[in-house]
């Protein structure tokens, strides 16, 4: 078909992984360009001048930034193997949970990594509260998308490998098997899907990375 698809990413960015997963699930061929965020390429700065971040999707020379915007673009452009339901109300429900993941789950987990003392406790507590709601949403389903991976699974997929990494780095439990049986089962199921499994960054490198991030942040406090 001659369409040019490129993905600008880093080896570990969980946001970039979302784009990789969506493209891989739809069987779209693309070129990968790895960025070093301490030394951003002129191309990255040109394609994402507003945020200067990964991921960026380049399709037929047009850049799209912001992982969730990119996911919707991929869905709009390649209509086979849909990632969103057809019914408008179910689509709205999916988008609601995607936003919940961004606005509530991610910041709480991120702050658990970056803060200490009381602030860390509060962030951890907020994370647990958000997991309760995810657990509720999974009732009667094995994946957020139902029988097959959908956009919600992709958007929340970072939980499936980062949670255990952060539990090791912080010596803090996030998703206890007994408290969150459905969420735990979802994480295992998601992580094992071949398309997902093949793209996980190496775990030991992730542990090193997040230890370094936490140390650097605490040193500046």
């Amino acid at each position, binding site marked *: 078909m001659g369409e040019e698809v490129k993905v600008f990413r880093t080896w570990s960015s969980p946001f970039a992984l979302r784009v990789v997963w969506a493209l891989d699930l739809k069987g779209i061929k693309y070129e990968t360009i790895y960025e070093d965020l301490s030394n951003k390429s002129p191309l990255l700065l040109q394609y994402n001048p507003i945020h200067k971040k990964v991921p960026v999707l380049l399709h037929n020379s047009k850049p799209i930034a*912001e992982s*969730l*915007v990119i996911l919707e673009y991929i869905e709009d452009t390649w209509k086979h193997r849909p990632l969103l339901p057809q019914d408008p*109300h179910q689509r709205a*429900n999916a988008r609601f949970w995607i936003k919940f993941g961004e606005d509530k789950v991610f910041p709480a987990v991120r702050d658990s990594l970056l803060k200490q003392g009381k602030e860390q406790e509060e962030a951890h507590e907020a994370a647990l509260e958000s997991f309760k709601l995810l657990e509720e949403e999974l009732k009667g389903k094995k994946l957020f998308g139902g029988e097959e991976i959908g956009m919600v699974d992709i958007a929340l997929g970072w939980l499936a490998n980062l949670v255990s990494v952060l539990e090791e780095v912080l010596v803090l439990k996030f998703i206890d098997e007994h408290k969150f049986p459905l969420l735990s089962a979802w994480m295992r199921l998601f992580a094992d899907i071949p398309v997902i499994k093949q793209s996980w960054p190496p775990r030991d490198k992730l542990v090193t990375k997040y230890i370094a991030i936490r140390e650097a942040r605490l040193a500046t406090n």
Partner: protein
Amino acid sequence: MAEESKVTLYGYWPSPFAKMVEIALKLKGVPYEYVEEDLTNKSQMLLSLNPVHKKVPVLVHNGKPIAESLVILEYIDETWKNGPQLLPMDPYKRAQVRFWASFVQQQLQDSMIKVAMTEGEAREKLVEEAYEKMRLLDEGLKSFFPDGNPSIDTEHLGLLDVVFVSFFGNHKVHEEVLGFKVIDPEKTPLIHCWLKALLDLPLLKETLPPHDKMVAFIKFINESALKSSTA
């Protein structure tokens, strides 16, 4: 109208998030019932319709609730085909609209709130940051208005117009209360023209909250917030 297909919007008059949904429904000519919520005394109905966030807006259609303003706007666009298309057909243009709508609702709004909540020297830096973000939007608008002349009619309003006018339609209120020119014709000329064109449309002008009512409300909120942050 059958009970099932009835549309109800739970809103709060000063909320730009709720305002967005109101405007979208009006543009599409969708008949709806509006329920004003008192956010200091939330109704049981609201709590049951949006148990996760307990916030407005919530749209109820066919007996089913939808929450989150941008999610609701996409739902409205997919469900009612009358009136303007809120999102363009072309996937790349859709991506641009979604990108900037999110930018306005999160980044710009965040900056304004930070300015409102800060006093003294720290505030100047935040004002500068707010201007910087506005400039980014102004730059981004060039792809929407390539000839530099945003002329708009209600048949062609889109999601970004609806989002922006909901947050910044009352900019004179913010200027009065915050004491800085939120929409500066010199710093952000395209935004200035765009907003002027939007506010010329009676449907938008009439749906936005009245100036004086909004000033009184914002002053009250800012004073309460400052009090509680310095307590």
